[in-house]
């Protein structure tokens, strides 16, 4: 993205006013993020149906395309053409605003996702913080949907969502502090680059004994944050019909699902970058050795030039991160179709009594370990 925009700027930038350049940057960025989120959601829906099918000894979608891979497109067409229903007693404005708000928040969070080590939407120093901040904004959208629908099921669902997210945001943030402390940066791209040693296997997970518990805590909190089973109480289809989205149908309903899968992908990306090496793997390492890593080199004339030889390295790095993210998404699906749902009091007990103190202990232990390492090996 940054290269694309820089290219535009260098060719026509002098002839365009600044505000038009800003507008072009914003529109292309939003278009790419929107396309990415839609693709992730479509693939994840198909994957979820296949995973759930195979876990329950059936095939899942089989007819639309090879092993049903076009099923999501068919579903999308159906959802787009469906009648747009708004309950008569609903709060119309808020009812229509809620799915947009939920989707906008998660699209904003995607701005911090690095595509490859050299290509990004925004190289944001506050990456982690921004992703957590924006994904907490989706809660407001869910509460808005629940209240605007004017139905008891939706209200129950959205109240549960609010309580659950407020409870689990603390362990989520605190357990992420452990790798952030070791890395010394909030920036996803920089944190990934720090794990490049040992042939691309110096993952933060292996550098500190408190990382593994922190990763487990982070994963559990991320499950609750993205309302996935066993913490899918806001939906709870066996008790609340469909929870906060009971009254929604058609494309508005699918916005909630896009948000859910995009949030799963982003949480997995945080886990992949801060615990599982991000872009780094032996494959990325050798690709970097073979093709070179710098996308921009100084040409013979001293001007900046694109280094096309490094493109395979960036492709390998991007695919590595996406594969790690989808591994996380697959783990979440696996858990969803394996574990029963917990009760709301169990959710609260787990969040406040166990996850929060344990994550604080992890931070303390990791800090002491790092300080000791620093004191022993600094000189």
């Amino acid at each position, binding site marked *: 993205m940054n290269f694309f925009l820089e290219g535009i700027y260098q060719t026509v930038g002098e002839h365009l006013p600044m505000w038009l350049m800003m507008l072009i940057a914003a529109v292309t960025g939003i278009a790419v993020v929107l396309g990415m989120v839609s693709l992730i959601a479509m693939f994840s829906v198909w994957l979820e149906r296949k995973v759930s099918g195979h876990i329950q000894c059936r095939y899942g979608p089989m007819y639309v395309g090879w092993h049903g891979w076009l099923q999501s497109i068919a579903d999308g067409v159906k959802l787009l053409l469906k009648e747009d229903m708004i309950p008569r007693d609903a709060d119309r404005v808020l009812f229509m605003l809620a799915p947009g708000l939920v989707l906008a928040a998660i699209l904003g969070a995607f701005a911090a996702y690095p595509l490859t080590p050299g290509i990004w939407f925004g190289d944001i120093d506050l990456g982690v*913080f921004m992703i957590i*901040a924006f994904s*907490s904004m989706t809660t407001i959208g869910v509460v*808005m949907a629940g209240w605007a629908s004017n139905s008891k099921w939706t209200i129950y669902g959205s109240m549960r969502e609010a309580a659950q997210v*407020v409870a689990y945001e603390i362990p989520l943030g605190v357990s992420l502090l452990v790798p952030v402390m070791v890395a010394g940066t909030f920036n996803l791209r920089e944190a990934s680059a720090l794990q490049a040693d040992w042939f691309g296997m110096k993952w933060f997970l292996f550098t500190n004994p408190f990382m593994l518990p922190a990763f487990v805590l982070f994963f559990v909190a991320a499950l609750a944050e993205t309302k996935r089973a066993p913490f899918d109480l806001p939906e709870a289809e066996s008790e609340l019909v469909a929870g906060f989205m009971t009254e929604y149908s058609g494309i508005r309903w699918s916005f909630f699902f896009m948000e859910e899968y995009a949030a799963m992908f982003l949480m997995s990306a945080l886990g992949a970058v801060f615990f599982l090496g991000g872009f780094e793997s032996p494959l990325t390492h050798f690709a970097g050795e073979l093709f070179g890593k710098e996308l921009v080199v100084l040409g013979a004339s001293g001007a900046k030039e694109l280094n096309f030889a490094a493109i395979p390295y960036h492709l390998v790095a991007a695919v590595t991160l996406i594969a790690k993210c989808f591994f996380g998404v697959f783990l979440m699906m696996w858990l969803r179709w394996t574990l029963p749902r917990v009760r709301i009091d169990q959710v609260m007990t787990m969040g406040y009594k166990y996850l929060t103190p344990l994550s604080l202990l992890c931070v303390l232990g990791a800090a002491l370990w790092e300080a000791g390492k620093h004191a022993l090996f600094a000189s």
Partner: protein
Amino acid sequence: MELTDRVFYAVVATLAPVAIGAGAFAAGGAGAAFGLFAWLVLGGSLVCLWERSVVRSAFALLGTFGGTAGLFLLLGSDFLAMSQILIYVGGILALILFGVMLTPPDLTERKLPRVASGLVAVGAGVAFIAAKVAMTADWVQAAELAEPKSATREIGVGFVAAEEYVIAFELAAVVLTVALVAAVYVARRRVVDLAPAPSGEQV
């Protein structure tokens, strides 16, 4: 929707292009962004005051908090902007909504005269402060301002470096933890409260 509501929302909606256009005219792209965020802050707080249903008022605060975060971003303090979103939108607004939804329904409708008197009182206060600021502030042209840049690193170093704010930061954290534990202690139900009342002495 009543006529007064229609007029009010029409006025608030027309203020948006006015604010963005005025900002763009005064300071280009950044000015337009400032106009948008300022409109979000003011429009959100106006709707919050105007709306008769308390839940809708609470949702209007979303615009105010988000706009404030945008203003912080324009000033180059991205850490503050993200904290604003995380703490106010993700935390405090969720808690406000939680509290509002738990109140009895007859409390959620406010009468128009009360709303109007609130609007007048707050408007007078805002006008006074705005006039005061406009008279006394040292105005700087947009072109003279330094380019805003991320201050995350300085903030992080400022927190962690031993001679800076680390002690104050840790002390504040301890005080907060004590307050939280105390709140839980005050609010918890004791075993004595749950036990059935004794019904006469058993021998």
